[in-house]
């Protein structure tokens, strides 16, 4: 069995804060998980949860207070490992006096490519992110979305085995988001490992084999999106349309929401047939019956809400 692409063990980061820097604020608290090879792994959490801090720890931009991490079997302190990884920082900013082609050429030099190979790789990457036409424009004239694309181009320029993307959809229009999703899926098809942080849960549900949820620096769960939110069906949603002059049976009307002549009902699974019988008796036209499943977003809001409630309770009890 192939070894994991990323192994994180008890990773912890404290920042010193305050004027005398005597106080400590824990940004990441004892993270431990692994990411398998060729997996698309989503790193979820609200703003300030510690996602970017974790990515910066993995990139060696900041140093852990405790714990270790390995990427492709090498310690994160080993700079040679950087030959096999790509990284898109959050809200990337690059040398604005360079053009996209010059920036990529600059970065390609760190991998020791010859001039011809650099040219070929740059052309390929620019095409992949849709920036061929703007290749000779200085980056100071780029929009936020275009900078994001350049950021992705520099992250995949050297065909890395593991790609780290910090909020890759940020600042992109719907077309750009779709293109980034396609790039992630293409990387997966090529057998690359993709580790990306996001707070856009729909993207995570759509793309990820597994996700980890981070809240206030602590890991709240790791698993497939469906494992995370649990696959239990919460109930059924019935959409019906009533003929003119007819009303829903009173027992159902109490728990229905109305939009014009249409009604939306939520019923428990065991009550479905009884409800349908009543609807038939009222000449209702059933438009659809669908399962109600909690989404990752539901899970997320519940988790954040629970955490805030707990923090509030602690706060109140301490007072």
């Amino acid at each position, binding site marked *: 069995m192939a070894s994991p692409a990323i192994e994180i063990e008890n990773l912890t980061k404290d*920042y010193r804060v305050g004027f005398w820097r005597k106080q400590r604020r824990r940004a990441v608290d004892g993270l431990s998980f692994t990411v398998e090879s060729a997996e698309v792994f989503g790193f979820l959490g609200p703003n300030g949860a510690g996602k970017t801090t974790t990515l*910066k720890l993995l*990139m*060696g*931009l*900041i*140093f852990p207070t405790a714990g270790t991490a390995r990427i492709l079997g090498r310690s994160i302190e080993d*700079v*040679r490992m*950087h*030959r096999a*990884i*790509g*990284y*898109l*920082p959050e809200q*990337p*900013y*690059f*040398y604005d*006096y*360079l053009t996209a082609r010059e920036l990529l050429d*600059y*970065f390609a*030099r*760190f*991998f*020791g490519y010859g001039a011809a190979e650099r040219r070929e790789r740059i052309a390929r990457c620019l095409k992949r992110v849709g920036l061929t036409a703007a290749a000779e424009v200085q980056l100071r004239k780029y929009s936020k979305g275009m900078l994001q694309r350049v*950021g992705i181009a*520099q*992250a995949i320029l050297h065909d890395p085995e593991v790609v*780290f993307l910090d909020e890759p959809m940020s600042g992109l229009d719907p077309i750009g988001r779709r293109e980034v999703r396609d790039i992630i899926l293409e990387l997966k098809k090529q057998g690359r490992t993709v580790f990306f942080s996001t707070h856009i849960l729909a993207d995570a549900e759509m793309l990820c084999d597994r996700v980890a949820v981070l809240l206030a620096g602590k890991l709240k769960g790791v698993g497939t999106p469906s494992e995370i939110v649990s696959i239990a069906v919460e109930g059924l949603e019935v959409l019906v349309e009533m003929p003119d002059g007819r009303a829903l049976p009173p027992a159902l009307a109490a728990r229905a929401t109305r939009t014009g002549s249409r009604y939306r009902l939520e019923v428990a699974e065991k009550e479905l047939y009884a409800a349908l019988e009543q609807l038939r008796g009222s000449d209702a036209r059933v438009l659809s019956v669908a399962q109600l499943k909690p989404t990752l977003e539901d899970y997320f809001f519940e988790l954040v809400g629970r955490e805030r409630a707990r923090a509030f309770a602690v706060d109140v009890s301490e007072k």
Partner: protein
Amino acid sequence: MTMSLAVAINTFREAVRDRVLYNLIFFALLMIAAAVLVGQISIGIERLVIINLGLTAISVVGLAMAVFIGVGLVYKEMDKRTLDALLSKPIRRWEFLFGKYAGLLLTLAVNTTLMTLGLGTALCYVGRTFSRADASILVAVYFIGLELALVTALALLFSCFSTPMLSAVFTLGLYVGGVFTADIRSLGAMTGSPALGAMGKVLYYLLPNFHNFNAIALAAHGRAVPMSLIAANTAYATAYIAVVLLAAAAILSNRDLK
């Protein structure tokens, strides 16, 4: 080496695109004005005045570039977070640092060379010929180069942990202190206090001695600069720069890039 070279070339390119070398226009105008005017108002000492003026301008312009570009070299990359993507490549922090240093040195070298050529042209205009004694002008320019290399290293060191404003203050403070090291030692001795005397001595040896790099007067009077001074200045600058760059590398290598 390849990594540092790539960073150095990019740093030079940044300076060129930021129009840093436009200062050469100012220098060219100064030299033209000096060559034309000095001939009319200083009979017999045109060369002395032009050499003094030219070398002082080379030194001052170079110093301003070394300080004000140097203090932002690393800080700007950290502040704008351009370092984040760069350091995810297989480059070590010290390689990046040395590349930035080499890039600014390259910029200063190009600037100083072009200004020296401008000075030479102005001298040609007033004197028509060059003598063997004029070689000391090149030595004076070489000393200015050493001085700028040292100032750049100091600015880079401060740039690793301080804001550009503070770094400029620290660097200029060290420069001024370094020009007057001998006076500081004498002052300490003159007070009669053993503590102040010792402090003056410590500062004399600790501060970079910029006084020894000034050979403008020798060059202006066409006097030869002793080989021993050239060797001593070269060795001193090399050693001091090495220590400062190692300290800068140690600081940057252990710093969190938040």
